[in-house]
C-alpha cells in the first residue's frame, strides 16, 4: 500500500462530535457513504490537516501526516491533498486561469482538456454556471499535483446530465492519474457507478468497509443500507436478451430483468426494494409478476410498523410485509415461502 491512505485508530473531535476511524484506501476511488452528521466531513478535515486528531495516525504513502502519539503533524500546505467541496469555493476576485494555476501547473493542458474549461479561462467565478465552477475547482486541485484527492459531496446540486459529465471526468482522472480519491456522498447510485470500494460511516464510526456485497453483509450496517435504499443486492448471471428484457440466472432460479449492456455469461448486480417484493405462502398462479424465487425464512425483524423478512433464495433477499400479512401467512423462521417481483422493480447496479 505504497500510495494509499491509512487511518490507524484515529480519534478526531470537532465541537461535541467525535469520529473514530480505522481505514485503508488504496489507489482508485473510495466512496464514503453515510447520512448527514455521520462524520464524513470530519474525516475529510482530519485527512486534509485542518483538524488535528487526538489519537491515532494518518499515513499517506510513505509519509506520516499526523501521529498524535509522536506529536508529529504535517501542516495542510505540505500535505498535497486536493480538496473539492460541494460548493466550488472559487475565489471571487481571481479569474479562472489564475485560479487553476494557484497551486502549480501540473499537466496544465491535459487538465484543462479533461475538465472542459478551455473556453472559461478569462472568466471570473460569478460568470460561471454551477457545473463550470465545479470543473474549475477540480482543475485547480489537480494542477497542484495532489497525492490524494478529497471530494466532498461533488454530485449534490448537479442535474443528471452534469452528474454523468462529472462521473466521466472522475473516470478519466482515475485512468490518467493513479492517485487515491476519497469521495464523500450520500448519493448511493453515483457512488456505486464510480467505485466498488465503499466505506459506511454512521454516528462517528466506520460501520463497514469493502465492496458492496461485503458492506451489506456487515453486522450493524443494516439500518444504514436500509436508509440508503440498498437492502437487496443480488448477483445474477446474464443468459441473454428476451423480448425487451434480459433473462438471467439467480442461483437456481431464472429471472427476467430490465435490459442491460452485459453480455451473456457476464455477472452483474441488481437491487430491488423490500417493498417491491410480494410474499406468498404457496406458489401462485396467474400473476403478472415475472420473477418467482422460493426460499426459506431465516429471520423476521420488526422495522417500524412492518416486518422485514429475510428469505434465503440462495442469496439473502429482504421482503417487507405488514404485521397483519405476516400473521395471515403464518410466517415463521424455517418456513419455505415464494417471493415475486416485477421485472421493472429490479434495477441494475452495474
Amino acid at each position: 500500500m505504497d500510495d494509499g491512505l491509512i487511518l490507524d485508530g484515529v480519534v478526531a473531535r470537532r465541537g461535541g462530535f467525535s469520529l473514530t476511524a480505522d481505514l485503508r484506501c488504496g489507489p482508485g476511488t473510495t466512496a464514503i457513504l453515510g447520512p448527514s452528521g455521520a462524520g464524513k466531513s470530519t474525516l475529510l478535515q482530519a485527512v486534509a490537516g485542518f483538524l488535528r486528531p487526538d489519537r491515532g495516525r494518518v499515513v499517506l504513502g510513505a509519509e506520516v501526516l499526523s501521529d498524535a502519539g509522536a506529536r508529529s503533524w504535517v501542516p495542510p500546505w505540505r500535505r498535497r491533498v486536493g480538496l473539492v467541496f460541494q460548493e466550488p469555493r472559487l475565489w471571487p476576485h481571481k479569474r479562472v486561469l489564475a485560479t487553476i494555476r494557484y497551486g502549480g501547473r501540473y499537466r496544465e493542458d491535459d487538465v484543462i482538456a479533461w475538465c472542459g474549461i478551455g473556453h472559461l479561462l478569462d472568466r471570473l467565478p460569478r460568470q460561471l454556471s454551477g457545473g463550470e465552477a465545479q470543473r474549475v475547482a477540480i482543475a485547480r486541485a489537480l494542477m497542484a499535483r495532489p497525492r490524494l484527492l478529497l471530494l466532498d459531496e461533488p454530485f449534490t446540486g448537479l442535474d443528471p446530465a452534469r452528474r454523468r459529465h462529472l462521473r466521466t471526468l472522475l473516470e478519466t482522472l482515475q485512468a490518467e492519474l493513479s492517485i487515491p480519491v476519497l469521495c464523500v456522498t450520500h448519493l448511493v447510485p453515483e457512488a456505486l457507478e464510480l467505485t466498488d470500494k465503499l466505506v459506511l460511516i454512521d454516528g462517528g464510526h466506520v460501520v463497514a468497509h469493502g465492496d458492496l456485497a461485503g458492506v451489506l453483509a456487515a453486522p450493524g450496517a443494516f439500518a444504514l443500507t436500509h436508509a440508503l435504499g440498498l437492502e437487496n443486492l443480488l448477483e445474477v448471471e446474464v443468459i441473454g436478451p428476451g423480448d425487451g428484457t434480459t433473462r438471467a440466472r439467480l442461483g437456481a432460479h431464472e429471472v427476467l430483468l430490465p435490459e442491460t449492456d452485459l453480455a451473456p455469461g457476464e455477472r452483474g448486480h441488481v437491487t430491488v426494494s423490500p417493498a417491491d417484493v410480494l410474499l406468498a405462502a404457496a406458489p401462485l398462479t396467474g400473476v403478472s409478476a415475472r420473477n418467482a424465487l422460493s426460499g426459506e425464512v431465516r429471520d423476521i425483524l420488526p422495522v417500524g410498523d412492518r416486518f422485514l423478512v429475510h428469505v434465503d433464495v440462495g442469496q439473502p433477499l429482504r421482503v417487507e410485509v405488514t404485521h397483519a400479512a405476516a400473521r395471515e401467512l403464518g410466517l415463521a423462521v424455517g418456513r419455505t415461502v415464494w417471493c415475486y417481483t416485477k421485472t421493472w422493480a429490479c434495477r441494475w447496479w452495474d
Partner: protein
Amino acid sequence: MTEIILLSLRIALVAVLLSLPFAILVAWVLARVPFRGRLLLDVFVHLPLVLPPIVTGYVLLVVFGGHGPLADLGLAFTSTGASVAAAVVAFPLLVRPIRQAFEATDPALLHVAMSLGASPRRAFFTVALPLAAPGILAGALLAFGRSLGEFGATITFVGNIDGETRTLPLALFSALDVPGRESEATAFAIASAVLALGTLVLGELLARRSRRWTTG
C-alpha cells in the same frame, strides 16, 4: 487657506497609511485568531472611541513628550506627531470594517489555498487580504475623515503651530479666538464640512464598485 487644507489632508493621509498595517494585523487577530485576552485587546482597541480626545493627547504627551520613554522619536509638536494623534483616535474606526470583512470571508476559501500548498502567509496575502479590500477601503476612508476632524488629542499633543500642526479644526479654533475673524472661521467650517462630505461620498462610490468583486 489652501496651505491649511493641504496640511490637513497630508496629516490625515499619513495617519491612515501609518496605522493601516497595524489595523489589518489587529483586525485579523480579532477576527480569526482565538486566544485568551482577545476581549482585552478588543476593549483596548475601542478605547480611543470613548476616551475624551484630550486624555488620548495627554497619554501621547506622557509617552512621546519631553520626559517620556519615547521622547527620542521627536514627535511632540511636529506634523508627524499630529498624524500619530489622528491615527490613534481614528484607529477603532479603521479596525472595525476590516475586521468585519475578515469575519465575512468563508474560511474554506483559505483552506483551499492551503490545500494547494500555500503557506498561511501566502493564503493571507493572496486570498484573505484582496477579499477584505472593500472593508479596508471603507475603514481607511472613515479613518481619513475622522483624522481630518481631529482636534482634542492633536492640540494637546502637538499644539497649534502655524504651518506645522495647525489643521482645519485648529485654524477654526484660532480664528474664533480673535474678534473680527468670524468670516474666516466660517470659511474654515465650510471647508471642513465639504472635505468630510467628499470623503463620505467617495467612500460610498468606491464601496459600490468594490462590492461587486467580493460577491462571487
